């Protein structure tokens, strides 16, 4: 393919691959453990960190990392310690994170030119420094999932029994949410904060229709992620469309197709 002669296209494909690995693995847990809402909250608080980065003049991706991890730990503790209305609290933190970001961006000197790329993604313009950050986070996510695959599976299937069996469920719950936070950071550059939750859940949801084991579900999710990002990337290049939204639409088309086929 002649479009591969462009450096930015090769970089974009690499980012797509790295994103697919992280979101295929963690998205599988998000779907089977039904923590889509809290994951949405974690991803939106990233905007607060991006705003802080702009305001204080450091890489917004580092701000996003700090904010999402803090949000994951905060929301996770609230969910475990309080039994009442935790979804309301999560919704509030979600909004506060966004609002902080909007205010800080406004207060920042100059015009935030690439702000839209954090909100809606811009896989074609990811700087090399961010690709390295994404690669390191990917390696971290892969190694933690590899180490604690069984533990995460147990708390996803039956957290109460895992506790009775003597597993430190609170620790693994928080660790899993931190992995969600890191995955969100990996994905921001590709599809943007607003659309993260779609790419995190769609490949895993499709894979869940076909797979009888968690491991195969993860592998299929990663594969589907690669297919969706690559097709989305190609279509956005071909028709000059925003890459993040195109990737999501391709993924969503795959999802609805699966639903149609599996109902027959």
């Amino acid at each position, binding site marked *: 393919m002649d479009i591969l002669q462009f450096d930015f296209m090769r970089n974009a494909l690499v980012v797509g691959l790295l994103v697919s690995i992280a979101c295929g693995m963690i998205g599988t847990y998000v779907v*089977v453990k*039904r923590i889509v809402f809290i994951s949405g909250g974690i991803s939106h608080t990233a905007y607060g960190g991006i705003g802080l980065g702009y305001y204080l003049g450091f890489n917004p991706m580092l701000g996003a990392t700090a904010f999402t991890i803090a949000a994951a730990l905060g929301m996770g503790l609230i969910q475990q310690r309080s*039994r*009442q209305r935790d979804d309301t609290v999560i919704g509030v933190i979600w909004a506060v994170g966004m609002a902080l970001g909007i205010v800080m961006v406004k207060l920042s000197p100059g015009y935030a030119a690439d702000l839209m790329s954090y909100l809606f993604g811009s896989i074609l313009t990811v700087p090399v420094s961010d690709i390295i950050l994404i690669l390191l986070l990917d390696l971290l996510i892969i190694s933690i999932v590899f*180490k604690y695959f*069984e*533990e995460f*599976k*147990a708390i*996803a*299937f*039956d957290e*109460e*029994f*895992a*506790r*009775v*069996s*003597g*597993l430190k469920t609170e620790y693994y719950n928080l660790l899993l949410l931190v992995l969600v936070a890191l995955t969100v950071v990996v994905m921001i550059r590709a599809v943007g904060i607003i659309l993260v939750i779609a790419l995190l859940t769609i490949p895993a949801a499709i894979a*869940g229709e076909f*797979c*009888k*084991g*968690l491991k*195969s*579900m993860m592998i299929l999710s990663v594969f589907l992620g690669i297919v969706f990002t690559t097709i989305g990337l190609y279509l956005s290049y071909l028709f000059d469309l925003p890459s993040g939204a195109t990737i999501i639409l391709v993924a969503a088309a795959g999802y609805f197709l699966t639903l149609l086929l599996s109902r027959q």
Partner: protein
Amino acid sequence: MENNVKDNVMIELNQVYAELDGVTVLENVNLIVKEYDFLGIIGPNGGGKTTLLRVILGLIKPSRGTVKIMGKPVDKNRHLLGYVPQYAIFDRNFPISVKEVVMSARLAGKRGKNYSPEDHKIVADSLARVGMLGLASRQIGELSGGERQRVLVARALALKPRILLLDEPTASVDSRFAADFYELLQELNREMTLILVSHDISAVSSYVKTLACMNRTLYYENSHQLSRQMIENTYQCTVDLIAHGMPHRVLPLHDGMEGN
């Protein structure tokens, strides 16, 4: 039924109170369970039966009172307890096999990344014990209600418990399966202490050694016969307790009640 109940106390609850979302669910519950007892706790839905089990398991902290498992707090002796929850709480489509479900019981004790050969043996033995070894590689969603319930028992057995707690294990299965299931429990009772919670009075009362009624507090007598007073206290109304095809009756005969 052979009676091998020993005198040593496995579980002791002393004036236990517990709240859920600010509402008192357990009120002044006192309970002593001796080794190899088979205690059946019956009572209306919402009467606090599940909460009582969760308090014993340490999943809910009592607001007052003490819970001791073989003389120690739950945190110290949790490894003595096995738990069979209601199946209704699970996602049936969860991508997990029968063997993986039972394996998860060995997770907390495993060293390093992999299960030991002993873990695999314990899991195979537990599955064989409930007659599910042949279906070990099935996904849980492919099983019938009765088969799933047996898998959950196997998982609890893989913890190597000395006390097994079961929450409405026959709620979603047909009556023929239920009879087989209670026979399995009676077999297990030769090796461990059992506590079974159910709203199914007639079925439970014909298999357990000790009966208690639960409605906020526990009405409990150390005998197999339920007193009419106990049941009326529990359900707060007169209960028609007719022994349909039961091997022996639960209530003593009295005026105005026809047995069959």
